[in-house]
Each structure stands twice: as C-alpha cells, then as structure tokens.
C-alpha cells in the first residue's frame, strides 16, 4: 500500500503541529503554486486530472466546481470549508482537523489562490469542540508563520481563514444552510438557483468543499493530478477516508485507495464483532440505502460499484450491522434523526419526516398495520425530490433501502409484534 496521503503526520506524537507537517513536506505545494506562479487554469486542470470528487457526499467533480467561480471579478469572493460532519456514521473530517489541520489550511490556501479569494471560513460541527480549538490554534500558527494572512510566503498573495462553530444542526452540513448559518441565521437551506458560485456567503460568489476534498489538494498539486487518479479506479480518483463504525471489532478511520474491496475494509476494521455474522451495511453515511451483507462482501468501495449495487458511496462512512440487529429498530432511529433534524421550511420534509418516523415507531412498538409499508413507500415518493434541499431525499432513501432488502423483517414485526432477531 502507498504511504498515507491524508494521514501523513499520524506517526508523530503530535501530528497536528506545523513543525511536524513541515517535516513531511507540508506547504510545499502552496510554495510551488506561488513561486511557479501556477495559473488558476493549470491548477484546475490538475484537480480535474486527479479525478477528485467532492468528499462531502454528493461526489461532484471538484475541478469542475472550481471552474464555476466568476473570473476577473473585482468584488469579494469567499471560500468555505464544510467540516460540519454530522451524517451518522461519518467522522473522518474530525480526524483531519485533529491530526492534520495544516493540510486543510494548505489545501484551502491553494484553492483560494486558484479562485482569487482572500477570505475563507471553515464551518466546524458543534460537538467536536476539541477539533475546533485545534483548528483555531493551527490557523494562528499558520498566520504567525506566514502561511495565512497578507503576503503569504513573501508573495503578494493574501488569504485568511476563520473557523465558525456550528451548534447542533445537521442540516447545516447542506452547503447553503451552512452559509446562512455563517451569516448568523437559522440554518435553513436556500433555494437554488442561484448557486453559491454566483450568490453565496453574504451574497458573494462562494465555493464550498468538504474538509477531505480540500485536504486532498496539496498532494495532488505536489504530485500531479494523474498520479492521484491512478491510485484509485476509473471515475473514482485517489484515496478516500472510510469511517467504519457499528458492529466491528476495531472501529476507526481508514485511508484507502478508491475501489478497495469492502471485504478488505472490514478486515482492517477487525471484522464483525465477537465473530458474529454480517447482516447489513450502510455504505456511505446514514442517508444512503442499506445493503445486505452478502451484496456488500462483493462490492468495491468506489462511486460506480456502489451505485451498481444499489446504494452510494456518499461520505464513505460505513455502518456495519451484525445478525443481532433489528432492522426496524435501526430504521426507527434513523427516521427519528431526520425528523429531528428537518429544518422545517419545506412542507414535505417538515410534515413527512414526522409521519415516517411515527409509522416506523408504531411498527417497532407492535402497532404496525400491513398497509403501513406501502404507505411508507408512497410517503417517500412524496418527499424525495420535492424539497429545497436533499435532506428530504436523505430521509426517504434509508426507508426505501430497508424496505427493498429487509421488507420481510418489517412484515414479521407487524404480524408478530416483535423482532425477528
């Protein structure tokens, strides 16, 4: 296996310090960009060549996204990093913030240079206070050492980065809700168009990427996009962080090439706990449809393979469930999450998530009716694709996935008023 890219400081005692980051070639990519006066187009070309796709869940090609920012624009533009990781199962960005904050800073600085931005914000999930503090300290360190602020590395390039702390709203992970939140409002997503590239933070052109996306940039610039792409597979360039949680012996974050077989990932996570049998896996964060263990054991962890298998790579968060898991109970908890986290503006999401949850809650508590399952599916149809943001879809997909693969278990529950397991 290749040397780690995103976790390249992890072998140090204090992986997060600037000193250690510099030891592994940190800020060399930024230096290269600035001293070679790389053109924005050249940078975008490298990023495009790397095959890097957004690590926040939607998998949008990063180079393409950057090319949407207006050029030769004299107004203010912003760069925003989405570290609001709150999709159940996902906890990879936290480790970048905690263990390699300078890599994120460097990646954002390169992006800022590329898109001619002077100010960036990093929006950090509220509960990971420690990571926020670590980022604040790293920014201060970088500012002192001349990697942030005015006249970076002796050039006239200027970029500063500030951290903004979330405070308990999953929906702020949605990029426009996140912008509203930075503006000091409720995190209610905006209708698009206009997209952030034309109307973003404070109404100014803005590019938003996930933490891991930005953190991948320095290596891509230092080593060339093609090399990054080659690590992965077609359509899924480079390495990816996989958070493995749930019923495994050694839960954790694993940096692996795209296309790594799930089988191998499970092995790295110590296998299913207590030698139990694998039952089901949510392969890309809680919003993605669940897949049965048998299917998963044959799947590779990349965009295309998972889509073919009937789910998505999403954020790359893998939730493993063993044979003792009651799928009704698992879905009840997930549905409760979307119900609790709906921002409340769109009718289908505000009213529909509660309805879904209540039905599943009833089923779990022995009060389900046979017609409930079709009702659930019909409600999902009426929610997904009908809302301002994708939280509506995110609430529907887990229900649809569960009923596709584990409908029998739900029927059993309704009929016998208890778990199959």
């Amino acid at each position, binding site marked *: 296996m290749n040397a780690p890219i995103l976790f390249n400081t992890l072998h140090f005692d204090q992986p997060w310090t600037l000193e250690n980051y510099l030891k592994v070639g940190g800020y060399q990519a930024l230096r290269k960009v600035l001293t070679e006066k790389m053109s924005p187009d050249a940078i975008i070309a490298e990023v495009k060549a790397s095959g890097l796709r957004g690590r926040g869940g939607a998998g949008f090609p990063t180079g393409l996204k950057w090319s949407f920012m207006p050029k030769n624009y004299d107004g203010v533009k912003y760069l925003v990093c989405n570290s609001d990781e709150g999709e159940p199962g996902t906890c990879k960005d936290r480790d970048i913030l905690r263990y390699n904050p300078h890599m994120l800073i460097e990646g954002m600085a390169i992006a800022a240079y590329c898109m001619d931005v002077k100010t960036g914000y990093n929006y950090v999930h509220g509960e990971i206070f420690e990571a926020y503090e670590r980022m604040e300290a790293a920014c201060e360190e970088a500012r002192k050492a001349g990697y942030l602020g005015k006249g970076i590395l002796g050039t006239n390039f200027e970029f500063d980065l500030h951290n903004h702390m979330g405070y308990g*709203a999953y929906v702020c992970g949605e990029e426009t809700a996140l912008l509203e939140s930075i503006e000091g409002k*409720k995190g209610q997503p905006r*209708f698009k*168009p206009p997209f952030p590239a034309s109307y973003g933070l404070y109404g100014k052109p803005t590019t938003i990427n996930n933490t891991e996306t930005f953190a991948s940039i320095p290596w891509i610039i230092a080593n060339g996009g093609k090399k990054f792409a080659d690590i992965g597979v077609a359509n899924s360039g480079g390495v990816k962080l996989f958070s493995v949680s749930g019923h495994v012996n050694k839960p954790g974050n694993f940096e692996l090439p795209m296309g790594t077989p799930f089988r191998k990932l499970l092995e790295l996570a110590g296998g299913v706990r207590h030698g139990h049998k694998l039952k089901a896996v949510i392969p890309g964060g809680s919003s993605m449809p669940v897949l049965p263990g048998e299917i998963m054991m044959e799947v590779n962890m990349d965009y295309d393979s998972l889509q073919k298998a009937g789910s998505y790579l999403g954020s790359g968060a893998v939730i493993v469930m063993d044979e003792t898991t009651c799928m009704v109970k698992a879905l009840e908890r997930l549905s409760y999450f979307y*119900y*609790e*986290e*709906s*921002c*409340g*503006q*769109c*009718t*289908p999401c*505000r*009213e*529909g*998530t*509660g*309805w879904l949850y*209540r*039905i599943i809650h*009833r089923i779990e508590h022995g009060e389900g009716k046979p017609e409930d399952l079709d*009702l659930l599916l019909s409600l999902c*149809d*009426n929610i997904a*694709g*009908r*809302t*301002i943001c994708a939280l509506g879809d995110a609430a529907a997909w887990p229900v649809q996935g569960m009923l596709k693969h584990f409908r029998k278990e739900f029927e059993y529950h309704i009929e016998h008023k208890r778990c199959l397991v």
Partner: protein
Amino acid sequence: MINIEIDGKQIQAENGATVIEAAHSAGIAIPHFCYHKKLSIAANCRMCLVQVEKAPKPLPACATPVTEGMKVHTHSEQAVKAQQGVMEFLLVNHPLDCPICDQGGECMLQDMSVGYGGGHSRYHEEKRTVLAKDIGPLVSAEEMSRCINCTRCVRFGQEIAGQMELGQAFRGEHAEIMSFVSGTVNSELSGNMIDLCPVGALTSKPFRYKARSWELSRRRSVSAHDSLGSGLAVHTKNNRVLRVLPIENEDINECWLSDRDRFAYEGLNSAERLTKPMIKQDGKWQEVEWQVALEFAANGLRHIANGAGAEQIGALATANSTLEELHLLQKLMRGIGSDNVDFRLRQSDFSGDGKQQGASWLGMSIADIGNADRLLVVGSFLRKDHPLLAARIRKAVKKGAQVSIIHSTDDDLLMQVAHKTIVAPGALVDALDKVAKGMAAKQADGIAGSLLGGERVAVLLGNFAQQHPQAAQLQALAQQIATAANGKFGFLTEAANSVGGQLVNAVPGAKGLNAAAMLATPRKAYVLLNVEPELDCANPQQAMAAMQAADLVIAMSAYKHHATEYADVLLPIAPYTETSGTFVSAEGRVQSFKGAVKPLGETRPAWKVLRVLGNLLKLDGFSQDTSEAVRDEVLKGMDVAAKLNNASPVPTQHSAPSTQHSGLQRVADVPIYYSDAVVRRSAPLQATTDGAIPLVWMHGEEMKKLGLQSGTVVKVSQGQGSVKLFAAADDKLPVGVVRLAAGHAATAALGAMFGTITVERA
C-alpha cells in the same frame, strides 16, 4: 421577452420572471401558499410544484425562472401528483375545524383541499397542537395549530413593516411562528399579516366570531384617517360595519392597509355615538326632533349675525370632513356674511396665506415617492403619521435610495437613514438653512451632499413642519433645497381631505380669520364640523376657553363629546361609512365613495344637514339633491391638477434668527391612534401600545437636571393649565425639549403644541 409554453399555451414572459409570474400574467392559476407577489420568494410550501420538460423532478413555479423555450405543465400527472402529495402533508397536522374557523370561506387551504386533497386521510397519528399566542389586541394568534409555516407573516415583518416581530422559532415539525418572549406585535401595519395568512392562524381579533365571510356585504370606500387615500372594502352585516379590508391599488396603498385604517371602524360602533339631535335648555340637554334642532341652530346664527355681526361667527372643521361637507360649510358661512372658516386646526403659522400659488399637496405622485433615489423628510413622525408612505420609502431605501431626516425626535423609522439632524423645534429653520447653504457649497456633504447626488429627489414636509410656528420659512427653505437638487417638493398632508378643503376654499379669505385667530380672538358663535376642539386644535386651552365663552356653539358630530359642556346644540352627523362623499388625497386624487351602512339612529349626513341649514337661513344655492351634485358644483370643469401648486415666493432674505427659547420647548406629536374622532373611540386601537396614555419624554440629562427618573410622576404646565403624567427617558431627543403628545384627553388641559412648557416633580 422570453417565449415559454404553459399547458400548451404560448406565453411571453419578462426576462427574469418566474414561472408563477408568467402563468399569473397569462391568467393561468398555479396553486400556492408561501408565494406572495409583494414578498421575497421562500419556496417553502412546495404547493406550486409543476412539471417542467427536461427537468428530472417537479419544480416550484414560484422560484423557477423562465428560460427560453421552457415547456411547463401545471396539470400533468407528475405535477398533480406532486401537488396532491404536498396537499396531503399540509393537511396532516392541520385541524379540520373549517366549520368554526374564522377563515372559513376565504381560506386558501380550504379552497385548494377541495381541488387537490385526497378523499380520506391516510394519517392516523396524533395531530400536532401548537399553543395559542397572545400577540396584542389586533391580531389573533389563538389558533396556531392551523399555521402551515409559509412564513408570509415573518417576511412581511422583515420586508415591509421593517420589524421582525414574528419569527419562526424552533425547527422541523416543532417550528412555530411566535413573537419574542410573548411580546405583542406593535407594528402600525400588523393587520396585513391577517390578510397574508393563507389559513386561519392569524385572524382579526376584533372580528373574531362576528360573522362568516359569506354573510357579509362589501362596499368600496376610502380611508378617512390619513392623506394617502387608501381603498377600503367595508364589510357589513345587519347595517353594521364588521371589518375593513384593503382594496388593492398599486399606485396608492398597493395591497396593504395601516392598522388605523383597518381597525378604526370599531370606533363607529362606540357607545359614545350621538344618535339624536339635542339642544341645551336651561342648562339641560334634551333630545329633540331634527326640525327643532335645526331651527334652533339657524335662529341662533341669524340672531348673532344680525346683532353682533356675522364676523362674530366662526366655523371650524376637521380636515377629514368630506369635500361636500367642507364646501357647504364655507358656502353657508359666506352666505351669512362671515369669512371665518378653516379646517387647518393644528396649524400655527398662517403667514403664507394668500401667497402660495395653489393648493398645498404632495408635490408628486405617491408612486414617485417610491421611485425617488434621494429623500429629505422634514418634521414628520413618518411611520405613525403616514404608515404606508413610510413603508413605500422603506422599500425605496431597500432598493438603494437614501433618506435623510430633519426633525425634533429620532424615532426608529425601521429603515436605514442616511443622514439625520435632530434638533429642538426652535432650531429647525436653522437646520434646513444649513442644508440649503450646504447645497451651494462646492463639496457638499451630509444631507446636502446626499440630495445633490440624486437623480430623483423628493423633499417632503411632514405634519410637524406644517404645524410649526415657522412653517412658512420651513416651506421656503424646503422649496429652495428641492430646486437646488433638481427635485420635487411637497407636503405630506395631514388628513384625508387636507387637499380637498383647499379646493373648496374652506379657508378664510382676506377678510376672514384663520383657525388660530378665530380662537385667539374669541367669537360669539362657532359652528363645529366633526371637531373636538381640545383634541383637534393647536392650542386646546385657548380653544376650550373660546368655546366656553361663546354665546352659541353648534356642534355637528358623530359623537357626544366634550361639547356637552359648552355647546348649545348637538347635531348627529354621519361618519364616513354612513354618508357618501369625496376625499382628495395628498397626491390630488379625487375619490368619491358611497355610504356602506345606513346612518345610525337619527344620524344624518352632514352635507344634508348643512343644506337644510342653508335653506332655513334662506341662502341661495342649497338645493342639491345628492352629494354628487354638491361635489360637481365644485369639481365640474375644475382642472384639479392645475390647482395643486406648492410654489410660493421665496423670501430673498429669509428668516430672522430662530426664535430664542428659554426653558424647555414642547414637541407634540399626535399619536397615530389619537388622530381623529373615530380612531380615538376604537377600543382595539386604544388597547395597543400606540394608544397608551402619553408619557413626558425627555433626554436623560434633562431629567437629571430636574431630579427625575423614568416613572416619576411629574407636573407639566403650560399657561394656566397643568397635568400630571409619568416621565420617561429618551436619550435620542435633543436636550431642551419635552416630548408630550397632543390629541389626547390627558394633555387637553395644556396649551400650544409648540412653545415653552415646564416640568416639575409632582
């Protein structure tokens, strides 16, 4: 222009229009709740989902911009399924209490559920209940479970009223529309939220449970409470006005109504209504037949005219009397030989009389105000005196206009103010003079600079400026400033018919006495039309002294008011909902209206009363059959626009230095719900914060000097009168002034609205 197709129909739409706008302009209805043409797009209800060819999923018509060649289906299977899905979600937590809901019959949700709702509910879970809220005397938020979270009310506050009094707190299914810590909604425009609410969540508190919408008859009318000329739909049942709604007119009130216009009607049904003619005999009031009362009045007038002389008779009217009433009043007075007639009751400087070229007016159209890019508002309690004009200016400011203020108070206008000069009344002329001089300077800054930078400049004089003892000088300076900025200059005229009163010449001629002079040199007889002298006049003390000393006072009024103490005959006349008539608005718009209900009791329209009086006095020209005939007598052949002209000769050397004041100067506003006889008697309006008993406002420093604190009871004196009220601090006031409202019984014992006043610890 962009070509699109909706439901197979070819349509041209403006560039940048949304699908719903394009559809609406082509007469195609698309169901919607959160969309409102006057508010920002929220796209949250999702009711307007339509199918757009090539789009993978249904799109909200309210938020989707049209693009060339777009094909939209509002009734395709995909669209209807989406709309029905949304409808189902809207109804799951909505109480099905249409039979008792005030909104029943005019509920968007009810209408649409008929068209889009499924037959029976698939929802068997418990419905959410949302706690009732008390947000004040005007808007009921009793039934918040009915709320569909369309956020129209919230956006209205933020965007139109300029004040976010309601918000959507909490989130998801727990989202609730509420105010901050159960505060009341105090905006002077709050009632519009009732109209905006598509369901029965926000309803009219005074109207609650009074009638079902289909039982009401509707009559058009015109607002009598400010000079905008807002269109009113007066809803009645059993000959009683039960509510008032706006009639939309983009050039006037758009689709809004101020709370004053909306809720004043409650004063029409007040127990204080005078419903029978009365005369005082041997110090006792007796109800009499109309004929008796009218003859009594006519004889009294004839007696004085023949004895002391007609110039001993004065007539005072309020400026919200109709054009017909004011015309016949002046005609009557002139017929009996008196030139003493006036409706400018709160004015104190009449030095401009006879010099101005035409009638004072807005100087531009209302729409022009919204299009101005630089405005200077002088001496105006803008939000409270002209609530909807303030909203228009607020909108202009949001679009980038700059508004500057010169005034003696610094109330929050709920809009960004570019520059302001807040000085005591005595320094107002100086402040304007400075701007005028500044405009001549090379590098003008502040207000002058702002005005010079504009392309469409408006300089406006408010009620306070018009009532000011140096009103003529303020006018001259304002005119000069407007000219220097190549802009327009106008008056935010005080009342519904301030312009009409001038057109009918209900003002004294060269021989006559103006309102102030009639009271300063008391007459033997007065005819009062709608006037409550202690509340409507510039100097209540003086007005009351004159009334008390007079031999004869004929009070024509809709109410039994203080006149019982000094009048000799009370003639019950109809308020604007019970008579036909005409108002001429600030912008010179002539609007006639019919009575909405029959006059209460034996009340008669004032124009008829005046006609009979004219006949009894054997005067010529009092034979009109209808109010229209009275109106036509004045307006037929008159080019109203040509009569409106604010220009007056500019004194080359203006102004003696501002009057020096020793002691404290009074700044008197006429609070919004004290402004006329009807609103004073509207219980719900009186229950608002704006209807509260006046406080004695001073700068904190001033209070310190006097050893006072907020809440201290103080004795306030002017002339021979004094009253006791609570003091309150307002550090935004200039030092040296005391702000104390006029138009309220609590301050009626005091003197002039301007001038010195003393305050001491009670």
